[in-house]
């Protein structure tokens, strides 16, 4: 994912079972079944702890599918790569798979 190109970043939250499984897998299934390009990462927390330079590649206009926005912003900041303005964070801990997918897929493609 290049910094100049808005994209979709999906966090699988590999190391904890805090995201409802039906939401986590539901969103992934819908993304995989779409014609959208996206990046799926095992765990944003782990990337933040390693200060993974790829976190700097999230461009304005991108969508990050993970957990609470306050936490996600903190993770990027902690890694030394604050999220640029205009990035939308979609929360799999609070939303349903349908709600999240409707925010991503073009109208009519989310069903």
């Amino acid at each position: 994912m290049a910094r100049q190109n808005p994209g979709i970043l999906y966090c699988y939250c590999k190391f904890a079972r805090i995201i409802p499984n039906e939401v986590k897998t539901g969103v992934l299934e819908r993304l995989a079944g779409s014609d959208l390009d996206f990046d799926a990462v095992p765990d944003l927390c782990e990337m933040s702890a390693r200060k993974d330079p790829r976190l700097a590649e999230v461009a304005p206009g991108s969508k990050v599918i993970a957990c609470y926005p306050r936490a996600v912003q903190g993770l990027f900041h902690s890694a030394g790569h604050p999220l640029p303005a205009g990035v939308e964070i979609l929360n799999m801990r609070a939303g349903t798979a349908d709600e999240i997918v409707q925010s991503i897929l073009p109208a009519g493609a989310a069903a």
Partner: protein
Amino acid sequence: MTVTAQGSVPAGVIAALLEKGYRVAREAAAEPSVRVNGKAWPAPPGAGAAVAAEVDAYVRGDAPVPAAAWKPWFPVIDYKRCTNCMQCLSFCLFDVYGVSGTGQIEVRNQTNCKTDCPACSRVCPEVAIMFPKYRHGPINGDAVSADDVRREAMKVDISALLGGDIYSLLRDRSEKAKSRFSKERDDERALKERQNCLVTMGKALGVPAEVLASLPSVEEIQAKAEAARQRAEEARKLAGQS
């Protein structure tokens, strides 16, 4: 390692690759396949774990299967709320926190943090410390309500929480224990006292038992507290200058 998933690769294949720790870049294309360094595996529906295992074997070659990975559990600071009071620096006994060159509190040694222990977030007066993998809000990053702030303000004074400054409390208990040893030589009772103290602290701050069991000695705690106080004081001066 990034694996490319082209076309309509089933979600099960992507999930299996993520479980093995691979980053997956999905690219829309005609035929569903998984690619690594130019080598491709077809990924028909129903694949999943089998494809992920083949990719993993190809990438690792003869390398041994890595040991269980560290669960990324560490505090994350919400700098929009943090007032740089250094309470967390003073409180943490495991040197997780540090101070930047500009006098700003920062999380420096993430791997020192004790898994499932959110205690430092509970003593933060501004509800500025998050553990994204914690179950409940606002520690998990959920929005902070006025009630949360009020509740934390009530807990900010650790002395109020534990009936005395934590380090003084531990020091007093150590002195009392020594005194009791000289009078009664009751080792079992002293141990029970210490366990009760730790149980109280564990309940109040949500500290797991295994973390309490690994706490440093009273003397080490006092030395760490003094060092933390000095660092916090220097940081405050530094922050005041900038």
